[in-house]
C-alpha cells in the first residue's frame, strides 16, 4: 500500500526565552534574555498508509501537537525528513493544502461574530470548490453532524459542542484526503465526545481518508483507532496495535468506588489491589477480564453510592512501556 505519511528522524527544537521573576530581573531579561533550547521532538520515525486511522497518544507536552503542526506545514522541522502525499509540508503548496486539514480542539477557524455559513462560503471560495461539490459536501456533513439549524446563528452564541461540530464541517468542506486532528474532543461532555468519535470513524470509512488523531486520554482512542503511536518527551515509546498495547501494558482497569457509608476497608484487598483510600472514595486496580465481575461483587457487598470503571491514566501506561523496554513492537 502507498505510504501517505513518511517521517524519518524528525527533530524539532524550540528556543525559549526564560522569564525571571521580579521586576529588576524582568527588566534585565528584556535587554539580556536568557535562552534555553527545548527539544520537542527527538529523531522520531514512522509511516502511515493510505486510509489508516492512527491514534497519537501521550501526556501533555509530549510532542503530539508539534508533530501535527510539522506535518501540516506550520512548523519548520529542525532536522529530518517529512513527506505527506509526496509533498514537503513546509512549502505549503496550494495543491497540498487543498488535500489536507488540521482540526484543533482549542482553536477555531470560524469567524466569531458571524454565522458559520459565512465562513463556509468563504472556504468554498478559498478552496475553489465548484457549486456542486460544495453543496454535496455541505449536505453530507450537515446531516452527519446534525447542525442544520445552527448554520445561521452567530458563532459566539453557540455552545462549545455545537461549535466543535461546525468546526468539523468547516475543516472538511473541501473533502481532504489527509486529516490531522488535535484533541478534537477536548472539553466536551461524554455525549458530545461520543458523537464526534463516531463521526470520525464513519468519515474514515466513507471517504477512505487517512487520519491522525491525538489525545492525552486513552479512552479517546479506544474503539476508534486500531493502531496507536505512543509518544513521550519527544520520543516514540510504542508504535503498533492498540490491542497489543492494552494486553501488554494496560492489563488492569481502574475501579473507582464512592461509598455512601463507612465500611471495613480491609475487605477491598480481597477484590483487587487497593490504590488509594480517601473516604468516601476508594480506588482499586483490577485485571481487565475480571473488572465486570469485581464490580458486581463490590456492589453487592459494600454500601456504594457510585462506581465507575476507567482506563488507567496514560502516564502510568507509558511508564510501564518504558520500564519494560518494549519499544516499537511491530504491527
Amino acid at each position, binding site marked *: 500500500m502507498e505510504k501517505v505519511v513518511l517521517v524519518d528522524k524528525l527533530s524539532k527544537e524550540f528556543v525559549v526565552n526564560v522569564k525571571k521573576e521580579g521586576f529588576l530581573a524582568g527588566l534585565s531579561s528584556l535587554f539580556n534574555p536568557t535562552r534555553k533550547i527545548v527539544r520537542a521532538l527527538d529523531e522520531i520515525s514512522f509511516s502511515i498508509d493510505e486510509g489508516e486511522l492512527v491514534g497519537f497518544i501521550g501526556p501533555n507536552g509530549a510532542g503530539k501537537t508539534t508533530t501535527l503542526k510539522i506535518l501540516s506545514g506550520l512548523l*519548520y522541522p529542525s532536522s529530518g525528513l517529512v513527506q505527506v502525499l509526496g509533498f514537503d509540508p513546509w512549502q505549503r503548496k496550494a495543491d497540498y493544502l487543498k488535500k489536507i486539514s488540521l482540526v484543533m480542539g482549542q*482553536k477555531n477557524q470560524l469567524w466569531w461574530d458571524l454565522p458559520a455559513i459565512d465562513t463556509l462560503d468563504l472556504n468554498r471560495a*478559498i478552496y*475553489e470548490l465548484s457549486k456542486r461539490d460544495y453543496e454535496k459536501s455541505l449536505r453530507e456533513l450537515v446531516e452527519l453532524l446534525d447542525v442544520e439549524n445552527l448554520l445561521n446563528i452567530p458563532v459566539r452564541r453557540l455552545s462549545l459542542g455545537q461549535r466543535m461540530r461546525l468546526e468539523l464541517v468547516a475543516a472538511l468542506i473541501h473533502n481532504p484526503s489527509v486529516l490531522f486532528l488535535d484533541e478534537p474532543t477536548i472539553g466536551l461532555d461524554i455525549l458530545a465526545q461520543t458523537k464526534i468519535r463516531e463521526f470520525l470513524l464513519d468519515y474514515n470509512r466513507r471517504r477512505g481518508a487517512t487520519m491522525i488523531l491525538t489525545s492525552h486520554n486513552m479512552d479517546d482512542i479506544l474503539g476508534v483507532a486500531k493502531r496507536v503511536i505512543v509518544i513521550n518527551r519527544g520520543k516514540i515509546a510504542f508504535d503498533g496495535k492498540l490491542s497489543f498495547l492494552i494486553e501488554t501494558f494496560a492489563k488492569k482497569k481502574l475501579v473507582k468506588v464512592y461509598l455512601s457509608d463507612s465500611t471495613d476497608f480491609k475487605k477491598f484487598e480481597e477484590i483487587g489491589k487497593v490504590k488509594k483510600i480517601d473516604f468516601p472514595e476508594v480506588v482499586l486496580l483490577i485485571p481487565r477480564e475480571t473488572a465486570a465481575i469485581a464490580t458486581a461483587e463490590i456492589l453487592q457487598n459494600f454500601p456504594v453510592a457510585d462506581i465507575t470503571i476507567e482506563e488507567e491514566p496514560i502516564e502510568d501506561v507509558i511508564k510501564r512501556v518504558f520500564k519494560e523496554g518494549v519499544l516499537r513492537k511491530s504491527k
Partner: protein
Amino acid sequence: MRKYWQIFKVSFNQEFAYRFNFLMWRVRNVIQILVIFSFWNTIFSNSSQAFFGYDRAKILTYVFGILILRAIVLSSRAVDVAGEISSGNLTNLLLKPVNYFKYWFCRDISSKALNIGFSAVEIFLLYLWLKPPLYFQGDPLVLISFLVSLIFAVLLFFVILFLVNIISFFMPENAWAAQFLFIVIILEFFSGGIFPLDILPEFLFKIFSYLPFYYLLFFPLQVYLGKVSQFLIFKGIIIAFFWFMVLSFALLKVWRLGLKAYNAEGR
C-alpha cells in the same frame, strides 16, 4: 478573483457585527475632525497674517484635504496581523490555499471602502457646517497624477504597516508598542498628518521628501492642490515606486524569517 471578492464581503460583514462599536468609532472620527479644525481655526482667526506661507484659507484646505486622504490611505485592517501572529490565529490562514498578503490587502480595501463611504457623508455634513475653503482641481492630467500618487500611497502604507506588524514573530509581547510608535507617532509626523511639512526648514524638508512616509499623505495632497510641477510629480512617483519595491522585498524576506520562527502558538 472570486476568492478575494468573498474575502471582501465577509470582512465587510464583520465590521458591522458590533453596531454600537461601529457607531462610536464614527463619533470619534467626527470629534477628531472638529478638534483639528478648531485648533487651526483659532490660531489663524485673530490675524490675517500668514505663518510659514500658510494663511487661514490655505491651512483649512490642507487640514480638510488631509482628513479625506487619511480616510483613504490610513484606514486599514492589517493592524490585526500582529495579534493574529502572537495569538497563533495565523495558523488558520497558513493552512489554506490563499496568499496571506492578498488576503489582508483585500481586507484593507474592504475597510477603506467602508471608511470612505462613511467619511464622505460626515465630511460633507461638516463642510456644510464649517464651510472651509475648498479647492477643486479641474486639470485632468493633475487628477490622473493624483490618482497614481494615491495608489502608491495605499500600497506603501500597506507594506509599511505589514512590516511593523510582523515584528510580532520575533517579539510577540512588544508588537503593540512597536505599532504605536511607528504608526501613531513616526508615521503621522513624517507624513504630514500633524502639520504641513513645508513649514519645516528647507534642509529638513528635503530629507523628509526622500523618506517613504512623505508619499503617504503630504505628496498626494500637494499634487492634488497643484503645488507640484510636472517634473517633481514624476520624480516623486519614481521615489514612491522605489520605496515600494525596496520595502516589499524587505517584507518578503522578513516574512520568510518570521515563518521559520513561528511557533503556531495557542496550543
